[in-house]
């Protein structure tokens, strides 16, 4: 191998200890955020279930009040984007082979063609987000440099992964970059805007409000 010692060191670090360190920081960060969220909650005010109310509209679902109605294209783009963000790395054949070699355990894997196709879809969605942020006034007006950094962190591991799979440019450099960026992203999840990954689940499934899946009579306390 003719690579420089620095890149070899980075490769070995990214392939070995950094994976476990980033995973550990991620898990500890998620626990910390869940505890922080729990501390913000208060004792539940007694409420009636919507089904117990006499109001027939209490359980009515009005699609006109959802993002699906107001932004159908964005709903599809964002749903596909977030689904791919989770399933591609988990069920990628190469990741599972590495996992199997390391701890003798692996998940099911997509075929390489499917993963490749999903990665392309993911990149298209990511660029739709970027163009929206740049060219749509309403998004641009509240965008900051930090939003672009977050976009970069979310899309760079997938773009470099795609380049590495197709062996475009210098494979060794690209795959090292891919691993480092992926690990940075995992570390960033609990401590940056990516934390909405954790809070989305909490808000939709656990916190009682008129939009959550525990759709009961809302009790506003402010």
């Amino acid at each position, binding site marked *: 191998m003719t690579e420089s010692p620095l890149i070899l060191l980075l490769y070995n670090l990214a392939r070995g200890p950094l994976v476990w360190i980033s995973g550990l920081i991620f898990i500890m960060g998620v626990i910390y955020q869940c505890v*922080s*969220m729990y*501390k*913000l909650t208060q004792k539940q005010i007694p409420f009636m279930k919507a089904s117990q109310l006499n109001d027939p509209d209490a359980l009515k679902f009005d699609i006109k*009040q959802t*993002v699906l109605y*107001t*932004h159908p294209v*964005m709903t599809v783009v*964002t749903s596909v984007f977030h689904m791919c963000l989770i399933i591609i790395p988990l069920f990628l054949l190469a990741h599972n082979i590495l996992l199997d070699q390391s701890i003798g355990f692996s998940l099911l894997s997509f075929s390489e063609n499917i993963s490749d196709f999903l990665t392309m879809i993911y990149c298209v969605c990511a660029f739709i987000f970027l163009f929206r*942020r740049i060219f*749509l*006034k*309403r*998004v641009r*007006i*509240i*965008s*900051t440099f930090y*939003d672009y950094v977050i976009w970069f962190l979310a899309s760079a591991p997938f773009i470099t992964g795609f380049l590495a799979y197709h062996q475009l440019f210098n494979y060794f450099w690209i795959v090292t970059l891919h691993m480092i960026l992926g690990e940075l992203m995992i570390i960033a999840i609990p401590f*940056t*805007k990516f*934390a*909405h990954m954790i*809070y*989305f689940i*909490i*808000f*939709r499934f656990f*916190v009682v*409000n008129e*939009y*959550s899946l525990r759709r009961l009579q809302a009790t*506003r306390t*402010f």
Partner: protein
Amino acid sequence: MENLNNVEQTIAVQSQDTCQLLNTFKDKMTLSLKVCAHCTLCAESCFMFMKNNKDPHYMPSYKFINSIGVIYKKKGNLKRNDLEKMKDIVWKHCVLCTRCYCPIGIDIPSMISTARSYCRAQGVYPEFDEIY
């Protein structure tokens, strides 16, 4: 006297009550500002936005970021001019109807309400004879 007025225009009074108010809501503000993805999908849920030709200044996220977000970033040390600008955002551009919808689940009305409390504690609020 004119200089004194200028000074008053640039310094916000920080009473103990106001600091306490900010400390009470600090964690909720931090969390809400941290998770806001600046996606603007909340915009159409605001009737003020819809009735004002979809002016982005009426988006719930814009109002939330430019009121409580500014208070949070400056740790409450705002100039009176900042508060006067905020007055329009929290009173004129929002009626606290609580119909805004955030896909992530941020309680935007609660945040605007906190910004209103902060402004009111600093003596910045709309007069009854002000026409909006």
